[in-house]
């Protein structure tokens, strides 16, 4: 698939926002300062909102986006379109309550957590439900959207805490971020390993229904390309993809882990924000890879120009 930048940004930003919110709720339970929580909550709203804004760029008709709620019974995209604003609204309410110092309800926090999880579920299912996109059609896709989002939110929260209270005070959250980053790395590596082992189910033979041993396309029927050649091919070399993969693994997992560990040992300011920033960039590369590695069976029909 051709990675769509709007969708990459959307999933990375929103995922981070969701992860951040989960950490805020945990901190709330541990008795953190409501005002600090409120600021964090608004940051989460901002991330989610920015994600939402990005997602509009993916649409041919953004002005009609409201129509997308119609098919919640069948479409994960529709469900996501419903859950995302709800999540934003609940997180915003939760933040507002903390800001106003009003007695807050655990119900709102719970609702927020459920919505964040639901949002990951929806986002993941948008991809995982496409059964012939075999790189995506797997529970690991769900797990990764959730874990990577949560991980990046946790690192961000640790950084936030270190800015507020000094690096030493953030040790607990550093540990949490490290655990989540390790989990995220494990899950993502598992999906990469799975992708490597995947053998395409569709072949040129099944695509046109000819049984011969060698079946090759000579012409896709057009010489200048089409929507099908633009949307479903990343058009990059294998080396480029391999580079992106290395960048993703280093920036999303390895480097943040090193920085987190370092911050735990030497509570130097700046290490944690650096870890969060690296992870953000790494996740953009990771998401690019997520799309690029997905091999659409339609591509069999668009191989050759002559």
């Amino acid at each position, binding site marked *: 698939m051709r990675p769509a930048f709007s969708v990459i940004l959307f999933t990375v930003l929103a995922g981070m926002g969701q992860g951040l919110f989960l950490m805020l709720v945990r901190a709330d339970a541990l008795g953190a300062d409501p005002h600090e929580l409120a600021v964090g909550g608004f940051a989460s709203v901002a991330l989610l909102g920015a994600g939402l804004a990005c997602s509009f760029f993916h649409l041919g008709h953004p002005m009609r986006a409201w129509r997308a709620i119609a098919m919640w019974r069948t479409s994960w*995209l529709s469900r996501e379109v419903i859950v995302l604003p709800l999540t934003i609204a609940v997180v915003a309410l939760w933040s507002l309550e903390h800001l106003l110092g009003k007695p807050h309800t655990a119900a709102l926090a719970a609702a927020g957590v459920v919505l964040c999880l639901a949002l990951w579920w929806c986002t993941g299912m948008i991809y995982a439900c496409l059964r012939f996109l075999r790189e995506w059609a797997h529970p690991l896709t769900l797990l990764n959207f959730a874990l990577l989002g949560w991980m990046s939110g946790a690192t961000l929260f640790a950084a936030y805490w270190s800015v507020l209270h000094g690096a030493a005070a953030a040790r607990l959250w550093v540990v949490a971020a490290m655990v989540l980053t390790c989990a995220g790395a494990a899950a993502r590596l598992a999906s990469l390993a799975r992708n490597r082992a995947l053998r395409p189910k569709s072949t040129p033979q099944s695509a046109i229904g000819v049984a011969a041993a060698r079946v090759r396309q000579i*012409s896709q*029927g057009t010489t200048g390309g089409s929507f099908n050649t*633009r949307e479903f091919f990343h058009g990059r070399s294998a080396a480029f993809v391999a580079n992106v993969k290395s960048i993703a693994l280093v920036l999303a997992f390895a480097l943040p882990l090193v920085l987190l560990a370092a911050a735990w040992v030497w509570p130097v300011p700046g290490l944690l924000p650096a870890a969060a920033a690296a992870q953000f960039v790494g996740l953009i590369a990771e998401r690019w890879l997520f799309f690029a590695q997905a091999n659409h069976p339609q591509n069999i*029909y668009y191989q050759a120009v002559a």
Partner: protein
Amino acid sequence: MTQPAETLAKQLALVIDLNVCVGCHACVTSCKQWNTSGSAGPLADLNAYGAEPSGTFFNRVQTWEAGAYPAAETIHFPKSCLHCEDPPCVPVCPTGASYKRKEDGIVLVDYDRCIGCKYCAWACPYGARELDEARQVMTKCTLCVDRIYDEKLAPEDRKPACVKACPTNARLFGDVKDPESEVSKAIRERGGYALMPEWETRPANQYLPRLVRQAQEF
């Protein structure tokens, strides 16, 4: 998730006879001209006179080769939306712009409702949908729904434009649920098959294989 598809009483479809298709592309441009000024149009062309021209077409004719010289076969392979009986492109559409008609199984896009999210195209294993880059709505073969029921047309004209154009009559049109229809008979008698059966989309359009007549023995 997706519910098992309903089985409709009527399912219109094209059956394409690869035994006689010569790859002339008549079905490609007759489709384009019919649809561009019709209910599905206009179908835009980008770089119409420049490098890498590319436009919206509902139907493409590809060329494939099977086997090796001198036993090589050249296969012309027309492809448009297959109007799947279990169309993965429909349930994923968030707006309901993509839908399958209960009356006849035609899969359509409601252009006024489409937000151009391309999700349905992702969900089609056959690459049969094309986003119109000028209108930013998803388009695809309509099975000429605006022709085939038009009572202003003579009965013999109530057929898809591509079917009427095809010089070799390689494109048969009809109800694959009616066992007596021309298409059902062709599928039965000529071993009609579906594309990428592994995805169980149950394409309504089917293909008739090459048939090689050997020299008579002497």
